[in-house]
């Protein structure tokens, strides 16, 4: 099938070039933590409101038995009889979890009307957006990871991981509260919409990016034709693409969009529709605006 063939020939190098260009135009990305009560955004380590490694003072606690004496904060201990240890607020980078749908339906690009511009497949576009976001986040000092692995990795590794993912159900590693999730999918697989709520329930914020081909949004067919789904067992469907059929399809399409958007809103996430005939930069900038901010330098790379 055509979809399988495309899968094997996914050229991450080419995608990486596009992603680098998009990230360079975007600049460093820092994740926004509005739920932490800080109005502004800051780049770098984010305070975790618990003791841990960090620069900010958290609290003093009594020296526990068996603890090394050199950890005693003598200045505090001098004011009382017991010995205290100074602890710091734990600070960890925020994590950006990315997922690009590996479903076969993503391996689709409609035949362009003019031969000059060739549309990318939805999956290619999703991977480019994901890689661009990962790269920008990396520059912003944030940790990024593939949603299924959750282990922070370099942006390029994230791209490789995402592109190597096998099609199937949406699989997610456990998320920490405060993580930011970006889902890039067409949500045509039946389980996709339902997977948003469980992710949100783990405390993560996120953006649902609905990647759509212009043909899917416009249904530009005319006359008698057979439409075939990408799944191998699918029967070709003979339709007469009249105005009536188009209306019926467009209705189903808006229903689909509404379903995704509703699921995202319910979970408190953002929804974004991205058509593959629009520039990748548009999507990356919109997503970045939703999940964080770009550096003051606006594109200057450090």
């Amino acid at each position, binding site marked *: 099938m055509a979809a399988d063939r495309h899968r094997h020939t996914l050229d991450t190098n080419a995608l990486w070039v596009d992603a680098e260009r998009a990230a360079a135009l975007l600049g460093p990305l820092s994740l926004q933590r509005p739920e932490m009560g800080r109005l502004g955004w800051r780049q770098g380590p984010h305070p975790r409101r618990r003791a841990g490694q960090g620069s900010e003072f958290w609290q003093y606690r009594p020296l526990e038995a068996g603890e090394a004496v050199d950890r005693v904060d003598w200045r505090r201990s001098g004011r009382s009889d017991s010995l205290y240890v100074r602890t710091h607020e734990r600070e960890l980078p925020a994590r950006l979890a990315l997922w690009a749908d590996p479903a076969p339906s993503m391996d*689709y690009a409609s035949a362009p009307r003019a031969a000059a511009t060739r549309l990318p497949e939805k999956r290619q576009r999703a991977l480019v957006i994901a890689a661009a976001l990962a790269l920008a986040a990396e520059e912003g000092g944030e940790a990024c990871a593939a949603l299924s692995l959750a282990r922070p990795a370099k942006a390029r590794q994230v791209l490789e991981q995402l592109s190597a993912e096998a099609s199937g159900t949406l699989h997610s590693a456990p998320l920490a509260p405060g993580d930011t999730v970006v889902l890039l999918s067409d949500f045509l697989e039946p389980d996709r919409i339902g997977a948003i709520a469980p992710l949100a329930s783990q405390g993560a914020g996120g953006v649902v990016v609905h990647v759509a081909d212009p043909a899917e949004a416009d249904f530009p067919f005319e006359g008698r034709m*057979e439409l075939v789904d990408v799944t191998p067992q699918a029967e070709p469907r*003979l339709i007469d693409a009249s105005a009536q059929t188009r209306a019926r399809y467009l209705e189903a399409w808006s229903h689909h969009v509404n379903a995704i958007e509703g699921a995202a809103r319910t979970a408190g996430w953002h929804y974004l529709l991205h058509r593959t005939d629009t520039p990748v930069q548009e999507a990356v900038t919109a997503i970045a605006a939703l999940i964080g901010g770009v550096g003051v330098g606006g594109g200057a790379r450090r």
Partner: protein
Amino acid sequence: MISPASFSLGPFTLAAPAVLAGLAALPLLWWLIRRLPPPTKRVVFPAVRLLGPVVEQPPPQARPPWWLVVLRLGAVTAILLGLAGPRWDPTPDTPAPERLLVVMDNGWQSAPGWPEMVAAARTRIEALEGDEARVALAATAVSAANRPIRTPDWVTPKTALALLEQMTPEPWPANREAAARALARLAPGSADEALWVTGGWGVEGAKPLAQALERVAGARLLVVPARMFAIRQYEGTADGWRVQMVRPSGLPEETVRLLAIDTAGRPRAEAPVSFPAGETTATVNLKVAVGDLARISRLTVDESRSAATTALVDAASLHPRVAVLSGERRGEPRPLQSAAYYVRRALEPYASVEAVAAENMTRTEANLRVFLDLPVTTQAQADAMLRWVREGGIAITFAGPRIAENGTRLAPGQLLTGTRAVGTRLSWDKPQKLGGFAPNGPLAGMTIDPEVTITRQVLAADPSAPGLMRWAWLEDGTPLVTARIVGAGALVMVHANADPRWTNLPLSGLFEQMLRRFLPLLGRASQPGGAPQGSFALETALDADGALANPRQPRQVAPEVWDNAAASPLTPPGLYRAGTVTRALNLMQGNGPISPLFRFEPVVPEAGLPVASADGVRAPVNLATPLLILGLVLAAIDGFLSLARLLNLRLPRPSAARAAASATAVALALMALPHPAGAQIFPPGLPLEDRPGSPPAAAVEPVLLGHVATGNALLDSRARDGLAMLTRILGTRTAVRAGPPQPVNLERDELGTYAMLYWPLTGAKPLSPEAAARLAAYLSTGGLLVVDLGSNPPPPSAVRAVLQPLGLPRLAPLNSDHVLSRSFYLLDRYPGRVQGQAVWVEAATEGGTEGGGDGAVASVVMGSADWAGAWASPDGVEPRQREWALRFGVNLVMYALTGTYKADQVHVKAILDRLPERKR
């Protein structure tokens, strides 16, 4: 003819109407096309699942696009219609008569439209129906002189068609009166209809013929128009012909091409002839390349080949082209001493005269060459010239000192070496006067000018030799002008100079008259006196279409009536020959039908007959072929589109429709094309060749001395060393700065750059013609040749053999009065390694023994002193003797450079003698 199976609807006929039944299958085809839709497109579209599992009505069958239906139905329709054999025959349907009299105008004016005229007559004859139908067919021009126009017989249409096929237009005028007389013998009213088929021109005899026709039956005139042109006049000019053409009046502006065709039938030159709107005449100057002029056999019009537009060209119509070849040295002497000057002044009003360098003798195209004291001695040149004379050239040779010394192969008879001097200081007798002119020669009847005297002449060895004609002689009977006919040309010899040194003939008016009398020799040299030899016999006939053919019957024209001969059955136009003379007889010649005032006059008003529609002669248009082509093209387009869909070529629909539309347009255009027009042949544009650039002259030293490479290493090295030493001496003693001496190959190297050529001549190998021509050219342009025979000179005969091709004048010993002995040093001896040998220079030069004081400069110095040897090394030469040798060398170079500049040195003694006298 209409067969029972055919179908006709007015002018539209179908050969096989049964095929049209196939058109009934068109609705079936239409139904089939609708039933067999194009295959459904299959498109991958993942979002189809959004449509849900609703089972919908299977959509109706797709319909093929309208243009496909049109394409296929159109293809089938066109092929079926084409197979039905449709013809558009616009001949109006006239009631067919039973007995038809057809008169074909077949004079020279019918030639352009003859096929159409025959077709028109054929249509009328074919239209006759019934077994009782009879046709009488008559022509207005006789096919030959001995076949008069006879009263036509009534024959069956089939026979009449066969007779019609045999008729041809004739290259002479129609004789309508004779035709009318012949038709008068038919019983009045014996025909149902009389038809006069004509091209529509010429009023002569139109009335009697019309009356004769009217008497026989109701007569009609069928005019078949054609493009008519005629050459009215033509005359030779210096570079071609001036041609006046004429056409019928009232026509719009048009241009035709006038061609000059050579003897091989190829066009050699062309000129457009533009008739302004409404004008009937146009004149054009047809320019022909000089080299092609003699090869042109006829002038014709490209668009209309007929006897009227063909002018055969003979030698008599050629314009005299005179090449004057002079043996005079140093370019052009003072005009009044130059023979070439007198000849040119005499001939220029009557001919195009061109001065030609002697070395270009064979390369120049001319039909009359005048050799002025220019001996033609080499075999190659003489052969070329004699061949040219045999082909009709006229070679006129004037004698002079060079011819007296060397003779010439172009003399009509053997010449005695040397000159006969009369009336000079050493002879008793007085200068000779003219004695008379031969009455049968071209000079016959000229008056003898008593003032003309001759003091020196070249004598013929045998004045009574067979074939040698004496055209003019002196008082004592010695010939002054002799001639001999060679082939179609003539050799003429004037036994005196053309400049005033030997005779004052060039100064008299007689000279010009004489030369003028020679011009008409062109083309009729075999009858120099104008007396013809036998009759002119027709050799090649010109037919009415302007093509040359073998004569159908032998024809003779007596020479005395030649000038009045006109194209007629008795004297058909063509090329006639008498002996070696070829003459052309054209329509537009003499009293021919195309007079200088000729106009095309329409026959219709003169005849006064009702005119039948000329449309009837249009050939039926065959519609089958274009229809079949259209059908096949449409089918091919359909096949291509189907194939493209099968192969899933991405053809967007709009462009497919466009492609179909444009292909249909192409097919329609193809159909609109008439039958392929005759290919026009244009002479291919010749790319301009890059001329080889002249050799670079930058490296040339101001003065160069050369020595002729002999191939003998010792001689060459000694000559080089000698000249090198001489160059050094020149540098120290004179202002001459000469470059290093160069060996010179006479056959290859450019000679003109050398001031002086030193030639150690030892061998007896004669000069090659090429080398001789180049060396002669070098000498005539002011070069100095020093021939050194060495200390061991070869026998004089050998030297003469070597130098013969140069045509050198007489040499005389160098004396101390010659400019050469005074040009730098005053010398009285000229030794090399050998002392005491005489040095020879041209006799008739300044300071020479025969010098007339006219400033001539010698171009040849000859001696046997081995000068180069003396110059090269002092070994074995006395220092004093070597000094003399070097001084002579300096004098040679100075003489070569300054010529007679130091001539006053020659006369200084006399000048000095006179000066004190004046003062006294």
